[in-house]
């Protein structure tokens, strides 16, 4: 495997040395472009109390191309679909090489705080959100308890 670009090394070092509260990202030892990420559900959001697992991969073109990020934990969120794909502009056309893993994860954390049903990825969830927000939030909270809290004490 080709040597890792200096940028990725530096980013990784900084991520670990200067961690963001509520976000935990560790590269795989066998592939330093592959990260395991945990994001804690933000306070006062339906995801509070949950810890969400994500995977993040830095493609060969990174930082010219955005990292690929996906939720592994099931989540009831209008901008995240069943497969965990995230609808976030900076992960698509608004990507800029000046962004980095840290900013991407912060954006995802923010997305959890502020779901945006007007730009949905999971249409049914978004509709639910629009039609009956309290009910949707309740369901999101329920999902959080069901799927996300389970992981809190990591068994391994």
């Amino acid at each position, binding site marked *: 495997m080709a040597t890792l670009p200096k*940028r990725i090394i530096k980013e990784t070092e900084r991520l670990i040395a200067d961690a963001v509260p509520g976000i935990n990202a560790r590269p795989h030892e066998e592939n330093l472009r592959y990260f395991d990420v945990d994001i804690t559900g933000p306070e006062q959001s339906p995801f509070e109390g949950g810890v969400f697992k994500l995977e993040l991969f830095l493609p060969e*073109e990174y930082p*010219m191309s955005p990292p690929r990020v996906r939720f592994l934990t099931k989540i009831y969120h209008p901008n995240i679909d069943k497969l965990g794909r995230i609808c976030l502009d900076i992960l698509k056309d608004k990507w*800029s090489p*000046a962004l980095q893993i840290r900013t991407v994860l912060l954006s995802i954390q923010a997305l959890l705080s502020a779901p945006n049903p007007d730009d949905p990825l999971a249409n049914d969830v978004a509709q639910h959100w629009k039609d009956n927000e309290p009910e949707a939030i309740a369901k999101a909270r329920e999902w959080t308890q069901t799927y996300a809290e389970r992981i809190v004490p990591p068994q391994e």
Partner: protein
Amino acid sequence: MAYDFGDNFYSNGETSSSSNSSFFDTFTNDNKNLDFSTDTNLRELQSIVGSEVSLPDLENLWNASSGNLEKAINSYFDNNMNKENLDMNTQTSSRRNAKSTNYHENDVEVPRKKARKNVARDWERKYLGSIVVSGQSTITGENVINFKDKITFESQVYYQKPIRGRKRSKLQSCWQSTVLKFKSANGMQLGIINDSKISFMVSNLIDAGVCEFEGQILLVGNDNCGEKIELNDEMYIEMKIYILHAAFSREPIFSISRENNKYMASGPASVADHKANDRKIAVLSMFEQCGMKARQSSVLTQEHKLAGTLDAEKIEEHFQNEEWTGFKSASSIQQSLFPPNDEEGPSISDQQLNALYEKAQMADMNIPECEPPAHTFLYSLRRYQKQALHWMLSKETLDPNQLTPTSLHPLWEEYEFPVQIYHETGEMIDDGFSNKLFYFNPYTGELSLDFQKVDQCRGGILADEMGLGKTIEILSLIHSVKYPAIDPNQVDVVDLTEEIKPSTVRHVSLSTYEAYPKIKTTLIVCPMSLLSQWRDEVHNVSAPDTMTVEVYYGKKRNWDLKAIRARKVDLPDVLVTTYGVLMSEFSDEENKPATSPLFNVEFLRVVLDEAHVIKSRNTKTAKACYSLRAERRWALTGTPIQNRLEDIFSLVHFLRHEPWSNFQFWKKYIQNPFDKKDLRALGVVQGVLEPLVLRRTKNMRDINGQPIIDLPSKEVEIEYLEFSPEEQDIYDSIYTHSKTKFNYYVKSGSILSHYAHIFQLLVRLRQVCDHPILAISKHTIINEDDEEGVNDLAFDEEGNLNIDHLIERFMTNYGERGNSANYQIEMLEKLKYGEDFSNRECPICYDNLVNGVLMPCMHSACRQCIMEYFQNQELLGKSGQCPVCRRGPITENDLLDISKKNEEKPSSGTSSNTNDNDNDMTTFEESDANLKLSAKLGALLRKLNNLRQENKMTEKCVIFSQFTSMLDLIGDVLAKENFSFVRLDGTQQQSDRERVLRDFKKPGIDIILISLRAGGVGLNLTAASRAFLMDPWWNSSIEDQAVDRVHRIGQKREVRVTRFIIKNSIEEKMLSIQKRKNAIACGLGMSKDELKAHRIEDLRELFS
């Protein structure tokens, strides 16, 4: 003729103005039955009011005045005829009445009078003189006018449509005319003054509140005074002129500040300025009319008066001019509002320069000599240096005659109030009031009752040619006048060697708080490269413990202002600092005064070394220098004028040499005439410089015909070399590529906007001439070692592209868009002051910037990274934008190269090429086999080897190149060939430089490599006697300067210089441009466009 002066004669009429109208009515009604045919009347009317008024309008006027001619005329002038005026699109504005006091008719007058009353004084007005003028009656009737009738004057300005067909500017949609009317004491208009010159003068003086006028009728033209008076009858009027106290207490119109440099930003000319000009002309005209002569006036002013440059004669001119009423044409206003860019001023030719210096030099031969104090000053001076010392001492010591109150500011004139003479008795009456004298500035029109004293400049410009020892001369001065007493009268030039007791040393009260404490220190400001030389020289010339010197640079800047104010610290005799430090500690914001101690003390003396650094008066460095406080000021420079005549203004301004340190004044009497190719301007400059400048050249001879210095000869040869075939190939391909690009710019007409890029192309071509490898790292900008980065990225005067322009461009294009203006400005400042950007991290590769570029938003990145991103965006069908702030669109052309040096670090963009991306340079060093000598390197090596064989390297060599990368190459070759050498370039810290220069003087080090720009000034390289110039510079004087570092006092050997030039290359073309440049500059004063055209021509020639 005898007449009465009765003030109370018409007091009734004055105080009961309410009755005026009825009186007037009765009067006109009585005359109503005068029988004129309407037609005759209309013509009569027209002859008075002017032919511009059309007949129908006149008819209206006539009817409105119920057929009364006087009424018609009066109402015309009184602006009662509104319809008429509306039709004419005219407005009238009633000017203030000239009648002295308590004249109620004009209400406007009253509040002004009240305001004036508040000023404490013992007189209201003073009599200046009287004149007799002729007027024309506008009334008819019997017993209307009596001999000796008191009259008052009133002016009225008419704005009228211009007469068709005459040229006029857009702004001047109407022209003005001033009519000066006179009225009887009871307010009835009697007539108008014929003489337009007088009308202009009087109306302006009334309007400006300078004077009051009183008059009386002397004679009515038809000789039947007291009886019937006809229209248009000529009348003679005596007009008494009084100057008002208020005229002296007014705010100056544009003040000639001697303290500040606020006016340096030449303020916009406004309507107010033109008014001021009118006032000035009016006052001058009045003085002339009254026969008043200045008691004291500078020779210069007298000359100007004779030459008519400011005289009342101007009025004539004024009247011939369409715009005589005081409004300048739009174009001239625009010019004064937007003065043409100073930087573009015509350059000055060598011949002119010689002529300038000639006069200054003539007297220099005969200056007496003066010995420095032998017990403290260790060097023995040469004769001409002793002369310099004497000259400087005399410049610093004020002429005691000049200190008496008779020394009038050269811009001002002194006048005496005339005493009022009563003609009846011939008795002279002294009014017994204070103020017998007053002062007038004929350049600004200012009046003052206070004596205008001159701040005499103590100091001058020491402009000895390079290598004559200006440093030593100044140091001898510092030794000679170490502790002058504060009273200049006590300073005895002859007894300067005598020690003056410390008790007399600049004794200032300790108890009071001093805003700007006077200190005994001499401040020397020099370029960074000379810092240590100055310090060392002070040590060298001074006997132990006779002089203390401190360097104010870097971290050694711990002056405690409080302690200085309290006189608690021992200050050094000499403080050396750099222009960079000065600038960085200076704050040119008005409300944020500099806190630096440098600007908060008054030095004994300030010396600017290489003073041409401040030649542009608007630079921050120049402003910082102007702001220094000092009793004595000196500017040292071998080239007081580098390109433009204006260069020297900055020095004159720094020296505060009145009156020339006033920019308006300089511009008016020197710069403008000079720009208009008026050769007299040269004479004026000579006159200005003569007392101010001491300049000797190396080839001058003393009185005995001996050369003043004895330098070994200097021999410069140009060695023409030819490319090897491989080099030729590379050169040709790059040349063709560049030429294509250039031609494209020519076709699209965008040469000037692509100056930077064109120069980059040229740099590459020049690098290929040195060694093709230099051109391989693509976007190298010629950003070699400038002094302290002040001229960062500048292509020098010739290139005319510098960071300021870039900044300007960036700001105009993008500055307004962002709210991140602060960040941008900060970046620009950093860029300007040469911050090293290579330590910055690229936001894309997270490495230090490699070939860093700035985007318009001032975010930076590696060129390669950002280009990769742009390409990516392009593939996605999007335009380039800043990756950090997303501002855009940005294209490659918008990127500003900020890479300092050739970045030799391998790019770590992608992993695959990390290893083979190792720079060519390293390969170069590592594998000697690949080291291919270029034509120049080979020639240099041959020469050096010859030297080594011939004379065992007894001669030391200096090798100059503009490209540090070339120096790298030479270094590699020399190391390989076992030459011992040192290197000096702009990247080195001051301490490193000192070490390098010390090392070079030691035996065993044979060669010094110097980057041309770093070695340009001040350095003393007399240890060497051979010099090699690897590549030509645009401006031959830079090369000469470099060579003169070797060929200067102290040089014992013959100096041989070799310039390497590649045949049939851009270098040869540069040589011919160098030669032609001097020829071009000889054409006195080229316009901006001409200069531009020439520059484009130069470029074309390069690509021909």
